[in-house]
């Protein structure tokens, strides 16, 4: 589903590479943690998958398609197959929960009928049924992140990218969010989650890829956050 093949990326020729010869592959339906210190290259991986950046060298294939050679007009179609969730939720404050989720369908030209079936469905999945008419400021952080997850997966993408999705949440709420992500993963969506949260990684026992200074230093099934544990 996601395939990196000797990918290097440098933002500036003089500074060191953000990613250096990174290769990994995530299968359909896999759940992968991307761990590592700040500046280790986690965000660069996510930006490359979304094709917000192109690699300096190497090949990236998403769902079998080369992202590097993709003409820019096709990029939106690539992104329709990828859901993305961030630490800061990125909701529209003047729209209701329903409208925030529907927005993702609206701007890719989906019909009103599609919205009225897909949006309640996905809100049910993330556990927000009954809160459609609330505004983001009326929700807790955990609920806001659920809205963001609902928006990311409403179009049923094959891949869900999560960049520190629990970074702003307390441990209990984080666990709830992880339960939602796991549920989505069980439905067949490949989940790639960049995180600092060792507890979560240790509890989930999923595949862990660790980055350090742009290199993959560890890639283990059912791994933990730190090598020692």
């Amino acid at each position, binding site marked *: 589903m996601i395939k990196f093949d000797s990918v290097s990326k440098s933002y500036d020729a003089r500074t060191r590479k953000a990613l250096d010869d990174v290769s990994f592959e995530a299968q359909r339906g896999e759940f992968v943690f991307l761990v590592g210190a700040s500046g280790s290259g986690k965000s660069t991986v996510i930006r490359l998958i*979304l094709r917000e950046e192109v690699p300096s060298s190497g090949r990236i294939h998403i769902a079998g398609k080369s992202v590097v050679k993709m003409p*820019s*007009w096709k*990029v*939106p*179609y*690539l*992104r*329709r*197959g*990828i*859901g*993305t969730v961030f630490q800061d939720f*990125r909701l*529209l404050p003047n729209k209701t929960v329903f409208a925030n989720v529907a*927005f*993702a369908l*609206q*701007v*890719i*030209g*989906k*019909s*009103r009928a599609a919205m009225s079936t897909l949006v309640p469905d996905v809100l049910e999945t993330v556990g927000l049924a009954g809160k459609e008419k609330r505004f983001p400021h009326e929700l807790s952080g955990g609920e806001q992140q659920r809205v963001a997850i609902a*928006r*990311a997966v409403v*179009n049923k993408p094959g891949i869900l990218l999560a960049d520190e999705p629990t970074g702003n949440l307390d441990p209990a709420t984080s666990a709830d969010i992880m339960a939602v992500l796991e549920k989505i993963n069980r439905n067949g969506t490949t989940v790639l989650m960049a995180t600092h949260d060792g507890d979560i990684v240790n509890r989930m026992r999923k595949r862990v890829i660790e980055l350090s200074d742009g290199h993959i230093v560890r890639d283990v099934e059912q791994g933990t956050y730190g090598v020692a544990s």
Partner: protein
Amino acid sequence: MRAGFILSEVVSGLRKNFSMVLSVILVTFVSLLFVGAAILLQMQVGQMKDYWYDRVQVSVFLCPPSSEAPTCVDGEATEEQKADIRESLEGSELAPYVDKIYFEDKAEAHQHFQEQFEGTSLEGTVPQEDMNESFRVKLKDAEKYEIIKEYFSATPGVEEVVDQNQLLDRLFGVLNVATVVAVAIAGVMLLCAMLLIATTIRLSAFSRRRETGIMRLVGASNTFIQLPFLLEGVIASAIGATLSAGALGLLVHFGVTGWLQNQATGFNLVSGVDVLFVAPILIAIGVIMAGASSLITLNKYTKV
């Protein structure tokens, strides 16, 4: 669905940036008013040229019954003198310069005079007997008018040689200068309008960066993201262009048709019909200008 969404984005954008949109409308309005004025001036020049150049270029006016010109001391030009003049005009000496000759008698002269000043205070002021008979001469080269003038300067029976074009050319000169001034002002104003549109779109894109960021993330196409901004600029500028066409129409209706035409100029002046022709040009200029500056700005500020 899509059209409805884009439209609602456009409306909200226009409302959020109301003061900027208003300034775009006003600047476009003023600049296109000058463009329209320049076009109308040139249409006026063209109309007059069409009318006159095909007709006569030099008029050799013959002595009327009473004239104070030294060549007319013997009174009205005789048949003999007329025959001499015609002979000279058709003769070999002037052949390289003269293209066509046409004799206008008193009845025709009077009729033309009446037509020309129809509806003005001059209509009917000169009786037919007092009109000049004349040879109307079309030159091969309009610049060689002096030769004809010299040639007949002392010919008995010729009152005056008048080059119609020279009178017109002076007028055309004034109109052309006015056109250049109008175009120059319009150019500066159009540049202002383009920069203003660029700034407006930057502001608009900045105030909606949250929305556009999410739109990009969930895979909205570039066109879909940029179209509302583009339409915002284009609509504002189209409104300005429409206003300028309307103002031009009012100016022509009250200023030219309502006032200048009554000042007995004797020319056909531009009218409301010509404004109808200019209006789509102005709107097209406004739309293209706004579209171009929007696209350039958008490619800079809302990249994928």
